[in-house]
């Protein structure tokens, strides 16, 4: 038997290599088991079927392949053992088909040991006398989709030959045919020609994405949604193709690509499976040769559809001429390996040949179980328009759920149907007709009858209804409705005498006061519209507004007259009349109610004109929807120039409730605000979210009870919601709307139970439409971001005196003749439930490295650390083309540089981590209390020291400056990470060094020596590096005359984790780490912990460290430190154990499960194991580390294997260790937040040291060397080292 590696082996083909590396990354992933079964109905000749199977297996060498890692890369050989057909009789089963299905699925879900297992299996399930499933499962390394067709047809040919006298098939060629053709291509000139062609074809490739943002790497399974293509669509496809003389497969590929391009910004890079068999000797050989060709699809939506498709067909044909060039290689050529970078997004797989084989006398159906990895979406069409097509959407469950893929399936069918009937793609909406109907139905359902009246008419009615009730409260004084009525009537008459009436504008510049409310009522009672002016605004701006609005009068107070020109038509508040009744206002629903000026993008403010019917709709909706009543006490604290003030100022009077006017300035002072809320028993108030955030952070807000809190004006986040409910009892509501649509047009109840993240802006208010449309004003389906448009009764009349601006933003509704839509300038998407999610301003879309980023998510993560009082994250583009995420934080307590970054790196992917953090004492706000983004400063990175001098230093200085975008080359002492580098840019640096020097320093070298001069020594060859894997690693440079500190590695054997700790202790002394020698897989494992400790002392001596040393270690590292101290005797200075406990404790415990040991690896890589409960196998942990950008994941495979081995082996060492007492003192630093009820204390060390000194820090065991813990532990260690005379 030559089952083992003794058999003659040969190299993998390029086609196989890509799959091999995928599988090697995650050996327990079964997704490369491709499988199918034939459903046989009738009475097959079973002996002929068995013989047919035996003959097929005998001639298909690929079924006997085995694989292993060889000295020169992966290799394969042919085992003598071929698979044999298994048989299972399920006729006695209650549900034979279900049982067979379960057995097949279980078999397909089992990962193979490619070195030992058969890569193929065949089973004949007998369900009944006349029904059989013939199951076939083959690893993708041995077969591709067309190879599967070949061998399946071959079974039928043999069967038909044996039973019906059909021709005997010619045997398949030997598998070496594939290797020979592969070698010929690898060594021939065509390969480099193809490489050049592809490089040119991919020039300017945008960041490749799929419909769902995120990391598209296949897991171990996929979701599938299958439907039969409707007959009418098949007929339309055939007729269209026939009529335009196009290939239906090309038409289908093009249109499917056009649909996908709608989800990816107009261009999609689809993966097109390519058989790669045409004209080759492998054409009829069952083996793995298929390739996936990246096809850029950027439809010209305006062009006549057949014209665009014809050009597209030519592009595909050209690409296929170069289709032997492996896409894996192309991906490497283009530098698209690692992180979220990829060469193509969804796959479009058209399989016209995928038809069931013909068995004489038996009815056969073909069912595909799995066809390999699903990174993103795989859209497969099996069959052809004439005989039927099965349409399968396979999806990566990490990116899509069942509902999403069913949506894509139905929507693509609708899209194809519409496109085949359309003149061009521009006419085809992305949303399906069903989805459009649903959107329309939701909008129509907001219809609600409202009275045809004015705001002031409703208020006058209320004043008459409850004259004695308290209406307005300010500084402890209260006016009744009767008094408000009287005073506003008197002033209204006065204004009418001055000429006020419908269509007239009266400006108001008053601080919050009785007079402010009286004036606003009086202006409306006179029939005019009010125009609020902010006394805090500069005089220039006020003058501009007055010039644009030409108000009849400006009402102000004597102290504010300096804001106005001497000839301004002022009416001062002391001059208000006190008696008189005005004439009826004469205003109707279509008259102006108020004008609010907003900032215009051109720099000149623009006045938004709101009519009565719009604001009446808004206020009556609010009153009814939230059940306001006469007992409500509504706080007025928003400046009147901000339209939120409109409901604060008038809703109380529509309800008979009391308006509580806050004193000027209160809206900026959390303490004063909390006092007002308590004293005045405020039941309703409003916050801009950033102010809410500050309010929630203030101790004064704790325990408040407020019936309703409304937020609008900025994005309310899930974090705001959760913090709100943790502090305040009452309802929280998110409202959204621009000034141009009467305050708010949508609402979302942010209840404590709501788990939405992001928090939606929600659903439309009465008589209002919300539409998410694309660039061509076509409706979008749920999930796809677009522009938010608003329609309905609340839309403003327009901009005062600016018909040009009005026409620009208030546009005819393309789907509702006569109606208008307002373009909000916001990006949004619909959720499946119809709620709208706000995604930011359309001019501030954040996209970094092709990934759509929700900055709010980063902000929430920062807030969740508890290290910041406030945080805002923006994407800055201080250098053209290079967006960087920068966070601005108001620290909670003292600012610890790096602490937040370290904490959020646990919950956010690397691409979302800010590249800079700017601490601020307060976030800048505008006069409206909104965050002033423009006032956020650019981050500064700087370093000082001697200039780079050696050639290697100069080269590196250039690279540091290039990668970190420094204004000038940094000095020799510059630290890559301190200058804003992160793990991603470290990868770039390693790559650039390789390009410049031809040598890959390894990312480990950068972590080992991020200081420019040190790294230069390594790459300059003055210092040998073992990629940071050497047994002795200098973590931080320091005073060589001082006693050095030696840090002992934890279980995984690596000492990198101590980098932060080492830096905190330098430069008083040098800090070294000892790392496990068995990180080199060739090294034999140590016999005992004592042997290991002895070896470490030798390593130190060999490095010239022969004097006193301080020793410290975390976890197992502490045990090693203690043993070294025993052996070193008087040479040991401080001996510090970071949450380590003696071996005896662990000996008593049951053997740890292997998974726990693996999860320790996550902690070593800086992840919180508790946050990754799903990583429960070795393969998952390794794959997770590989995919991530952590340095650990960048380790060579053998080393990562070694780390895994060490985690387990160290456990053995610990259990076999019997401590001896050390002569000196032992310092134990306990993880105070851990070990509840386990009795793990420093006292356990009493027998093993002269004296045990103790300290405790408030962290978990896993956090002991985190940057946060280091800030507490470093001072303890420093003091201890000084205390030992070192």
């Amino acid at each position, binding site marked *: 038997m030559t089952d083992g590696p003794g058999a003659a082996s040969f190299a993998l083909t390029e086609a196989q290599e890509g799959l091999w590396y995928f599988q090697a990354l995650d050996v327990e992933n079964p997704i490369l088991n491709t499988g199918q079964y034939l459903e046989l109905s009738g009475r097959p000749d079973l002996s002929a079927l068995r013989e047919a199977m035996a003959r097929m297996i005998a001639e298909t060498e690929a079924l006997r392949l085995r694989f292993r890692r060889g000295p020169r890369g992966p290799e394969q050989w042919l085992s003598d053992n071929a698979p044999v057909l298994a048989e299972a009789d399920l006729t006695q089963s209650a549900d034979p088909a279900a049982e067979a299905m379960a057995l097949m699925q279980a078999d397909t879900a089992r990962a193979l040991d490619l070195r030992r297992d058969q890569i193929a299996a065949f089973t004949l399930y007998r369900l009944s006398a006349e029904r059989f499933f013939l199951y076939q499962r083959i690893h993708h390394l041995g077969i591709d989709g067309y190879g599967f067709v070949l061998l399946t047809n071959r079974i039928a040919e043999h069967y038909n030959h044996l039973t019906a006298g059909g021709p005997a098939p010619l045997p398949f060629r030997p598998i070496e045919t594939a290797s020979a053709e592969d070698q010929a291509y690898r060594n021939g000139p065509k390969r480099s020609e193809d490489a050049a062609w592809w490089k040119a074809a991919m020039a300017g490739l945008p960041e490749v994405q799929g419909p769902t943002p995120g990391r598209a790497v296949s897991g171990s399974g996929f979701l599938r949604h299958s439907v039969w293509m409707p007959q009418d669509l098949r007929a339309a496809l055939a007729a269209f193709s026939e009529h335009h*003389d196009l*290939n239906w497969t090309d038409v289908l590929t093009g249109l499917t690509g056009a649909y996908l391009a709608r989800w990816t910004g107009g261009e999609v890079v689809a993966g097109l499976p390519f058989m790669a*068999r*045409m*004209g080759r000797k492998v054409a*009829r050989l069952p083996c793995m040769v298929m390739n996936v060709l990246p096809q850029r699809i950027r439809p010209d939506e305006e062009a006549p559809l057949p014209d665009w498709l014809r050009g597209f067909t030519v592009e595909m*044909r050209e690409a*296929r001429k170069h289709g032997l060039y492996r896409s894996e290689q192309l991906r490497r050529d283009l530098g698209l390996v690692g992180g979220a970078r990829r060469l193509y997004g969804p796959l479009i797989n058209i399989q016209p040949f995928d038809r069931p084989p013909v068995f004489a006398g038996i009815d056969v159906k073909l069912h595909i179980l799995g066809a390999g990895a699903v990174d993103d979406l795989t859209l497969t069409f099996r069959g052809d328009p004439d005989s039927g097509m099965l349409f399968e959407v396979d999806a990566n469950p990490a990116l899509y759920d069942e509902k999403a893929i069913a949506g894509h399936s139905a929507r693509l069918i609708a899209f194809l149907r519409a496109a085949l009937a359309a003149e061009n793609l521009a006419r085809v909406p992305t949303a399906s007709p069903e989805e459009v109907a649903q959107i329309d139905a939701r909008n129509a359902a907001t219809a609600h009858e409202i009275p045809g009246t004015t705001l002031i008419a409703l208020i006058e009615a209320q004043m008459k209804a409850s004259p004695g009730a308290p209406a307005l409260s300010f500084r402890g004084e209260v006016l009744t409705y009767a008094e408000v009525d009287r005073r506003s009537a008197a002033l209204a008459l006065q204004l009418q005498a001055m000429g006020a009436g419908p269509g007239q504008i009266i400006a108001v510049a008053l601080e919050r006061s009785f007079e402010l409310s009286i004036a606003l009522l009086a202006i409306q009672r006179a029939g005019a519209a009010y125009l609020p002016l902010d006394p805090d605004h500069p005089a220039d701006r006020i003058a501009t507004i007055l010039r644009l609005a030409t108000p009849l009068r400006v009402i102000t107070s004597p102290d504010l007259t300096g804001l106005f020109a001497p000839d301004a038509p002022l009416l001062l508040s002391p001059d208000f009349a006190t008696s008189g009744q005005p004439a009826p206002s004469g205003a109707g629903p279509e008259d102006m109610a108020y004008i609010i000026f907003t900032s215009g993008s051109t720099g000149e403010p623009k006045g938004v004109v709101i009519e009565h019917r719009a604001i009446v709709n808004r206020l009556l909706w609010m009153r009814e929807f939230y059940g306001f009543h006469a007992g409500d006490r509504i706080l007025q604290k928003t400046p009147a120039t901000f339209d939120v003030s409109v409901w604060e100022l008038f809703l109380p009077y529509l309800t008979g409730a009391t308006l509580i006017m806050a004193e000027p300035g209160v809206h900026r002072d959390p303490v004063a605000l909390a006092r007002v809320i308590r004293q005045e028993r405020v039941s309703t108030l409003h916050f801009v979210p950033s102010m809410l955030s500050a309010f929630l952070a203030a101790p004064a807000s704790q325990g408040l009870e407020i019936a309703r809190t409304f937020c609008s004006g900025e994005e309310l986040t899930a974090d705001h919601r959760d913090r709100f409910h943790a502090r305040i009892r009452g309802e929280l509501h998110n409202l959204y709307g621009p000034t141009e649509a009467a305050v708010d047009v949508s609402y979302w109840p942010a209840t404590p139970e709501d788990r939405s993240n992001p928090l939606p802006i929600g659903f439309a208010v009465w008589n209002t439409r919300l539409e998410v449309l694309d660039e061509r004003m076509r409706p979008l389906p749920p999930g796809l971001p677009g522009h938010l448009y608003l329609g309905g009764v609340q839309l403003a009349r327009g901009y005062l005196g600016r018909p040009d601006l009005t026409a620009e933003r208030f546009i005819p509704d393309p789907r509702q003749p006569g109606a208008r839509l307002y373009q909000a300038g916001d990006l949004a998407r619909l959720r499946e439930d119809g709620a709208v999610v706000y995604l930011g301003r359309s001019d501030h879309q954040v996209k970094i490295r092709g990934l759509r980023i929700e900055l709010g998510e980063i902000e929430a993560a920062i807030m969740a650390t508890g290290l910041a009082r406030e945080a805002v994250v923006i994407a800055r583009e201080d250098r053209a083309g290079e967006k960087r995420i920068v966070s601005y934080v108001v620290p909670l307590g003292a600012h610890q540089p790096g602490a937040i970054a370290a904490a959020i790196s646990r919950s956010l992917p690397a691409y979302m981590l800010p590249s800079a953090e700017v601490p601020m004492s307060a976030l800048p706000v505008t006069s409206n209390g909104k965050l002033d983004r423009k006032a956020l400063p650019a981050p500064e990175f700087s370093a000082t020291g001697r200039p780079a001098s050696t050639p290697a230093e100069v080269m590196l200085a250039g690279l540091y400056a290039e990668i970190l975008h420094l204004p000038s080359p940094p000095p020799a002492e510059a630290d890559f990470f301190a200058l804003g580098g992160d793990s991603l840019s470290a990868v770039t640096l390693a790559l650039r060094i390789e390009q410049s020097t031809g040598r890959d320093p390894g990312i480990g070298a950068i972590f080992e020596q991020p200081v420019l001069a040190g790294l230069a020594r390594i790459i300059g060859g003055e210092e040998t590096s073992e990629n940071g894997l050497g047994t002795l690693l200098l973590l931080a440079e320091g005073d060589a005359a001082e006693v050095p500190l030696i840090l002992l590695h934890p279980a995984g054997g690596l000492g990198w984790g101590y980098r932060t700790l080492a830096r905190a202790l330098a430069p008083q002394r040098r800090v070294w780490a000892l790392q496990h020698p068995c990180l080199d897989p060739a090294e034999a494992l140590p016999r005992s912990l004592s042997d290991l400790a002895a070896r470490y002392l030798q390593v130190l001596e060999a490095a010239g460290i022969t004097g006193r040393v301080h020793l410290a270690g975390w976890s197992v590292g502490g045990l090693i430190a203690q043993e070294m101290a025993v052996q070193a005797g008087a040479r040991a200075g401080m001996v510090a154990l970071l949450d380590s406990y003696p071996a005896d404790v662990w000996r008593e415990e049951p053997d740890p499960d292997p998974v726990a040991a693996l999860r320790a690896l996550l902690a070593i890589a800086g992840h919180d194991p508790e946050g990754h409960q799903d990583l429960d196998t070795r393969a998952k942990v390794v794959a997770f580390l590989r995919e991530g950008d952590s340095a650990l994941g960048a380790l060579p495979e053998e080393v990562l294997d070694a780390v895994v081995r060490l985690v387990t082996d160290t456990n053995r060492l610990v259990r076999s260790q019997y401590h001896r007492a050390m002569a000196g003192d032992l310092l134990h630093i306990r993880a105070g937040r851990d070990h509840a009820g386990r009795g793990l204390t420093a006292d356990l060390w009493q027998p093993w040291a002269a004296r045990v000194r103790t300290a405790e820090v408030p962290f978990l065991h896993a956090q002991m060397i985190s940057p946060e813990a280091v800030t507490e532990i470093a001072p303890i260690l420093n003091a201890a080292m000084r205390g030992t005379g070192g």
Partner: protein
Amino acid sequence: MALTLEQMRADIARMIHLDADEIGDDDSLPDLGLDSLRLMRLAVIWEEAGLRADFSMFAESTTLGEWWAEIEERGLVN
């Protein structure tokens, strides 16, 4: 009606928008624009015309002359 060499030539020509006389027995058909999916369509057409061969026979070689030689040699036409 049995499939003939000339019928196959005409079918290929139609599929790739050439005249039949532009397709020589020794011309590389992929170079003339015949891709595997078009070839698949032809294979289906020819199968319906009585050819007993699967698609991959056509794929292994790239000229009409080679195809016809194999068809004749193996007697694959009814």
